[in-house]
């Protein structure tokens, strides 16, 4: 031991027992032995013992004491690798990975060949994706322990991750050569070979990969992967005949995998839809019960190529069987207007014939069951909902409900129709009714909760969810523990719409923490996968974790969080409260009503829960759930206080935290750059604004929201003096190439108006900017957007709501009267949309809700 603090033999033996106790998790005994050493006055300040005592305390959950002891131990013995290692482990358990790496490095200074420390260091490095460092450490491990196979695999993997494919392959190859006697069913060896093959493929060395695969065919036990890999390699190497044969064989194994059909099509070099259709026809004859060959042709068969016949066959079969998600299958076809017409004709025909003679067609021999008509109505309702004909959609769904009033699927569709028509309240009521028909169905329960959240009934939604969550704790807490992100992101969106920003942010931060947790969860796999040789899966896991925040839940959450933080920057909370009382959409009485309602609901919920609990307790004792998982290893999170969250001092800094992952992982998403602009605009960073605009324009030159960014940017640049010549030079040269029509915001805005004179969202964007540039133009700006009956395009609930918001927020000048008129106009056009309800109707709607059971 390099440390100069040597223990006597007796104490040394005790110290070894302390270490052993720690390893075996006998923490209390460990503390006992540590105490014995420290009680000897000669060693009462012994650094390593103090550090170990701290580490042991940490495992018992005494975080503060742990830090005290470990730090004290380290201070007493700065040259001990044990102390540094212990400090690193402590930091690691607190997720302070960067700090922990530093500690390990210090430890290695005093004992550079310590295997355990090197291993721990390599784990942290791969966790932090310090790939260069990881490679170095793995190299040292390889040199120290070349007879261990994990050393080789780890080193190869480091090179693979650094994209040094050749080196990775070489290392694996050298390792493979040492494996002289492979047993016939060695699955781990099979995985190694497949991983090696992956490396070759990723390096673009396709021929070598194919040869490798052929050479080791007998050793590769995962035959499915063997076939799939070989087929794709053959295809890429343009050995079409062989590729086709394998894909056909794969279809024999599983005729429901779409990818295999595409493989056959690619191998046959099918370019026309006819040639592709031939494949599906062929397979359909061979496997008449397979669904893919019946389903897929609908997508690429044009009306002249028998689309109608394919659709007819599929629809009849599905309606006969009563397959509720039939519409989901058809939905992709709605991009093609011709196909939509054909579908509509077909289904309407069925409905008429089924009604008059119980047959799909008069000439049919077979008569159909009455439920077939029911499913036909169900489908028609969804069809008309999809094409935006709310009235017809409601007619058909009501017709269906007259037929069978208790069919859950019908009520779900009815709720959807209301939702799409803009009436979240009726939608939620319908869903609630659907839910009441089968309270044991968690799917419908969740759907109902989601609709309630959309309607803003937060307490009711929680009560709904509580039917399925763990007892003895609030549903929101339990859902948070389960990382139930659909619930939390819906809540965040709803709270934002209600102006309860703190609550919304709380949900956003909770979701962000889930993502952090998922990232942390990979820690265990760094050692496990290497030993179990599940290398392909491990690499996939690492890559998945790297792109984790691409997930739609994160994108949605980040968007909400950033929008709120930007809003809070513009309207800090103190301001907002006053404004809320004055001119938020709700009057004082309405606010009071809402609060009353929520209080009532909460009371009811509590009573219900208490009753239920009592009942359940009586009913069964054996179904006791285990106590809450006391995972101390996880850092106790700071509790989130909505009040505090919405009063953050630096909202833009918080917003950037959510923006960063989007910038690196979703650079091709326009939304990312619009959000970036909103932040940097408020931070007065011209170059970063320019960057956002440039990237945004490279994705979509005609987006209306991006246009508002462009104009605000130009206005900002024109009105701001740039002191630094370099910044000025970059700005000017970049802008010159970006805006060929010049950089005068008024000119650019007028040009935009000329280019998109018929689209409501574009007109609104241009009008807002017109008013922003010159407040005298309010009247002209307003006249651009308030006509609804002309030949405008993209007139829908969303765009009209945006116009209404602009009028309400005086973004087009003061115009109280015009706001009211426009709202009435919209109400006529979209009678179901609550956004345009006149106040008296809204109040009625609310009281209805309250009376609802």
């Amino acid at each position: 031991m390099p440390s100069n603090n040597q223990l006597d033999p007796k104490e040394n033996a005790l110290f070894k027992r302390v270490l052993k106790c720690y390893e075996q998790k006998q923490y209390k005994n460990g503390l006992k032995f540590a105490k014995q050493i420290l009680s000897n006055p000669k060693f009462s300040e012994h650094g390593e013992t103090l550090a170990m005592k701290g580490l042991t305390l940490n495992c018992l959950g005494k975080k503060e004491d742990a830090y005290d002891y470990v730090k004290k131990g380290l201070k007493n013995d700065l040259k001990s690798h044990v102390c540094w290692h212990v400090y690193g482990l402590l930091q690691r358990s607190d997720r302070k990975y960067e700090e922990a790496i530093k500690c390990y490095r210090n430890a290695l200074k005093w004992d550079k060949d310590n295997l355990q420390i090197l291993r721990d260091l390599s784990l942290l490095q791969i966790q932090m994706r310090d790939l260069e460092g990881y490679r170095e450490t793995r190299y040292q491990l390889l040199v120290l322990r070349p007879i261990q196979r994990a050393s080789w695999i780890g080193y190869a993997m480091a090179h693979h991750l650094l994209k040094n494919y050749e080196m990775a392959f070489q290392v694996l190859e050298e390792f493979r050569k040492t494996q002289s006697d492979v047993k016939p069913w060695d699955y781990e060896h099979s995985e190694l070979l497949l991983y090696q093959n992956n490396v070759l493929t990723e390096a673009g060395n396709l021929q070598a990969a194919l040869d490798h695969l052929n050479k080791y065919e007998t050793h590769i036990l995962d035959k499915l992967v063997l076939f799939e890999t070989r087929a794709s390699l053959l295809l890429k190497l343009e050995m079409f005949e062989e590729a086709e044969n394998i894909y056909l064989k794969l279809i024999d194994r599983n005729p429901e995998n779409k990818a295999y059909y595409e493989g056959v099509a690619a191998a046959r070099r099918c370019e026309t839809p006819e040639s592709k259709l031939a494949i599906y026809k062929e397979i359909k004859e061979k496997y008449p019960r397979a669904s893919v060959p019946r389903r897929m042709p609908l997508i690429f068969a044009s009306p002249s190529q028998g689309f109608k016949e394919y659709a007819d066959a599929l629809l009849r079969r599905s309606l006969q069987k009563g397959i509720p998600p039939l519409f989901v299958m058809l939905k992709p076809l709605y991009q093609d207007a011709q196909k939509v017409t054909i579908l509509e004709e077909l289904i309407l025909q069925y409905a008429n014939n089924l009604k008059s003679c119980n047959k799909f067609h008069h000439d049919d021999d077979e008569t159909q069951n009455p439920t077939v008509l029911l499913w036909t109505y169900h489908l028609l309702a969804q069809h008309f909902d999809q094409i935006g004909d709310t009235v017809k959609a409601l007619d058909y769904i009501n017709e269906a409900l007259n037929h069978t009033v208790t069919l859950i699927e019908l009520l779900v569709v009815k709720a959807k129709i209301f939702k799409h028509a803009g009436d979240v309240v009726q939608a939620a009521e319908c869903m609630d009714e659907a839910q009441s028909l089968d309270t044991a169905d968690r799917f419908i329960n969740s759907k109902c909760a989601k609709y309630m959240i959309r309607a803003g009934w937060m307490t009711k939604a929680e009560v709904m969810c509580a039917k399925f969550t763990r007892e003895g704790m609030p549903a929101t807490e339990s859902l948070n523990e389960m990382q139930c992100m659909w619930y939390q992101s819906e809540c965040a969106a709803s709270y934002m719409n209600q102006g309860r920003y703190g609550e919304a942010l709380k949900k956003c931060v909770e979701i962000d923490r889930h993502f952090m947790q998922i990232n942390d969860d990979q820690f265990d796999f760094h050692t496990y996968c290497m030993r179990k040789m599940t290398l392909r899966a491990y690499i996939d896991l690492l890559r998945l974790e790297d792109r984790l925040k691409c997930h739609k839940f994160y994108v949605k959450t980040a968007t909400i969080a950033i929008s709120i933080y930007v809003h809070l920057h513009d309207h800090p909370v103190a301001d907002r409260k006053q404004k809320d009382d004055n001119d938020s959409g709700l009057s004082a009485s309405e606010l009071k009503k809402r609060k009353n309602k929520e209080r009532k609901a909460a009371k009811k919920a509590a009573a219900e829960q208490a009753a239920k609990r009592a009942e359940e307790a009586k009913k069964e004792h054996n179904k006791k759930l285990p106590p809450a998982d006391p995972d101390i290893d996880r850092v106790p999170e700071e509790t989130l206080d909505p009040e505090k969250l919405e009063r953050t001092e630096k909202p833009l800094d918080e917003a950037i935290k959510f923006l960063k992952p989007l910038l690196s992982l979703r650079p091709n998403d326009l939304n990312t750059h619009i959000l970036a602009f909103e932040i940097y605009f408020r931070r007065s960073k011209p170059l970063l604004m320019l960057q956002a605009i440039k990237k945004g324009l490279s994705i979509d030159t005609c987006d209306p929201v991006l246009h508002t960014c462009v104009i605000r940017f130009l206005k900002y640049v024109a009105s701001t003096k740039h002191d630094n010549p370099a910044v000025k030079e970059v700005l000017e040269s970049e802008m010159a190439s970006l805006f060929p029509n010049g950089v005068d915001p008024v000119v650019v805005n007028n040009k935009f108006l000329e280019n998109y004179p018929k689209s409501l969202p574009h007109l609104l964007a241009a009008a807002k900017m017109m008013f922003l540039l010159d407040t005298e133009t309010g009247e002209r700006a307003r006249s651009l957007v308030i006509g609804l009956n002309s030949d405008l395009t993209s007139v829908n609930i969303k765009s009209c709501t945006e116009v209404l918001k602009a009028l309400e927020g005086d973004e087009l000048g003061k115009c109280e009267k015009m706001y009211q008129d426009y709202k009435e106009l919209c109400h006529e056009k979209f009678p179901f949309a609550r956004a345009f309800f006149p106040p008296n109707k809204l109040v009625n709607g609310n009281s209805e809700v309250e009376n609802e059971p």
Partner: protein
Amino acid sequence: MADEDKNVEKDNENKGKKHDSGTADLEKVTDFEEEKEISPQSIQDAMKIVAEKQRKVNEEKLLREKELARVKVNKEDVELIMNEMEISRQLAERKLKEHKSDLVPALRDLLN
């Protein structure tokens, strides 16, 4: 009473097992893997090849780093980049060095 104490202690122990990140547990489960070792016959040759390659990689990297380290940068320029582009000092310095201390191209590079 004594029994109860024992139980409590046992419970604590069980909990203790859960507390650890699980890495240690996994290690236990897979301990036998550690035994699987390579017969040392061809290791010498294999190691030689690997070491040679690693050496080359290291040399190239060092050379590149040395070149960059020679470039001197203006502290004010670094701070301007940090402030305008909101990036770390490390990255700002590196970008500036890659562009031979020329501010405008460095900014332009970061912009695109």
